């Protein structure tokens, strides 16, 4: 009798354990919200929170893709410049006037953006898997390539969406809202929901985790390791494309600095969210939470009145470390 009771308790306890690990980033987020409320009374206003959530969309969506890549034991440093490249191509296409009707033009451009994202991701995937080059170097290389091509396309300047009709049509994709929820937030939720479904409920997702956990075991189990890895890069490319779809209507233009350092932010969001860089684990919702955390840290810095503008970067760094510390202590205590 005691035994069964004990076992039950154990099961419950172990559940708690797993939960805590997944919940830890959310606790850190909650603490930040409290901190923010102290920093500025406006912080907890709906408007501000919606703003922050909305603008975390780019990193959050890209980071969902990065979760796949990292869970499979890879890495993608090229996402920031990929945003610049894909968005630039999309704007150039929309400016080209190749299709007269604005809505058809827009629809085609959207489709093309998705296709280009997938193609860029495929390129990354093939370089790392078919040519067997360390993902770090491979994507550092393509990071340079995409960035350079963007600079070349823009001749160093900006590429700006010109057609006013398309602009009007397209604007709600970033600035619009559905039932009071801004479209970008919906985009985050939908992307993350799909990502979580694919990673945790489908066969492919299982394969991703297996490949990241132990490549040999995956290979011996008949999992096409290279294909699985390549597809994670394509998923990353698709996520970048979705981010581009939101990015273009926001400022309507790209330049050589678009997406600079976003790769670092995306990877940071993934790690803060509880996905280990060595692969084998993936937490999509944690990643989204990580992206929020990053954005909120910046927001609190700006809203608070105590901090010298010169020190902001330093304090951001410190907060990130402290946020991780909170998580660690939480998980260890359990």
């Amino acid at each position: 009798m005691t035994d069964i009771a004990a076992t039950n308790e154990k099961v419950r306890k172990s559940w708690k354990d797993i939960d805590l690990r997944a919940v830890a980033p959310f606790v850190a987020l909650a603490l930040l919200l409290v901190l923010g409320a102290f920093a500025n009374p406006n912080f907890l206003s709906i408007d501000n929170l919606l703003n922050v959530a909305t603008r975390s969309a780019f990193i959050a969506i890209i980071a969902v893709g990065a979760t796949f890549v990292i869970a499979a034991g890879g890495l993608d440093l090229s996402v920031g410049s990929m945003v610049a490249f894909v968005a630039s191509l999309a704007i150039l296409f929309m400016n080209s006037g190749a299709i007269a009707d604005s809505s058809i033009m827009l629809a085609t451009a959207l489709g093309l953006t998705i296709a280009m994202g997938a193609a860029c991701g495929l390129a990354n995937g093939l370089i790392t898997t078919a040519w067997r080059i360390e993902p770090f170097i491979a994507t550092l290389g393509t990071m340079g390539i995409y960035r350079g091509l963007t600079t070349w396309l823009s001749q160093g300047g900006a590429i700006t969406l010109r057609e006013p009709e398309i602009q009007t049509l397209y604007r709600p994709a970033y600035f619009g809202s559905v039932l009071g929820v801004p479209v970008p937030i919906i985009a985050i939720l939908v992307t993350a929901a799909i990502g979580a479904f694919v990673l945790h409920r489908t066969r492919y997702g299982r394969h991703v985790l297996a490949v990241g956990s132990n490549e040999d075991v995956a290979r011996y189990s008949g999992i096409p390791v290279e294909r699985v890895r390549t597809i994670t890069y394509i998923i990353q490319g698709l996520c970048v494309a979705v981010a581009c779809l939101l990015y273009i209507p926001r400022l309507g233009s790209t330049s050589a600095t678009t997406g600079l350092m976003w790769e670092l932010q995306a990877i940071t969001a993934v790690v803060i969210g509880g996905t280990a860089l060595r692969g084998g684990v993936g937490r999509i919702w944690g990643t989204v939470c990580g992206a929020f955390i990053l954005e909120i840290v910046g927001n609190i810095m700006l809203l608070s009145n105590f901090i010298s503008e010169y020190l902001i970067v330093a304090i951001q760094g410190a907060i990130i470390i402290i946020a991780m510390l909170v998580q660690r202590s939480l998980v260890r205590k359990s």
Partner: protein
Amino acid sequence: DKKVTIGVSIPAADHGWTAGVVYHAERTAKLLMEEHPGLNVIVKTSPDPASQANALQDLAIQGIDALVILPSDPDPLVNAIKEVKDKGTFVTLVDRAPSNNDNSVRDLYVAGNNPALGAVAGQYIKDNTPDAEVVVIRGLPIPIDQQRQDGFDKAIEGSNVKVLEKQFGNWNRDDAFKVMQDYLTKYPKIDVVWCQDDDMAVGVLQAIEQAKRTDIQYVIAGAGSKDMIKKVMDGDKLIPVDVLYPPAMVGTAMELTAAGFYDQVPVRGEYILDATLITKDNAESFYFPDSPF
């Protein structure tokens, strides 16, 4: 025709203004070479001071008679420039001055006036909205940014213009968008935005539009990008003026340097280009629709 090689070292086209610099440098190089068949102009870009110091060495290796340099950050490049100058190369320094800006560093100085860029903006605000509450979006924490800020502060000194806050927007549209959004959250009333650079103004305008705030009277940016000049020309209420800080100055410097070799006019000393205030009246003459910037 005399055989002359001019090396041009400029920052990489990593945002709008520097892109304009690259554009004008390459354009002027082509024009000068057409004009003087014996002239060879080599344009090289570098992303940061350390690699620009390297680029100077590389140019020196190729054998140059003159160097035109727009340093990405002047102080760290002083030694490297001196190195070139000590070999007898004619040195033209453009835009950004090191702390010891004298003849030991350069022969000719073609200056954009960074303090003036800030001062003109400050003056305009003081004159037009004497009691304005202003938020400032700075560039990156490097000296030219500091000079602009100092110029601005000096211009509004003693007036009723009040700076609510200064933050860095990294000369980047996306970052400026975020900073502006947060300013709007933080301050219920903002009269004027000074954002130091046209690129960042793009983000600022979007943030204001999204928030549907009507309290902001206008935004002052700087540099003179074609998009912003167009807005001034079109009479955009939010962008009544722009402060010129022409990337074309690098072209001027190159022309002056070449003239020193071919026209026998002694070009030495300092040429300060003013930070002109672009208004609806004079905007037309600063508008280059073909420039990337």
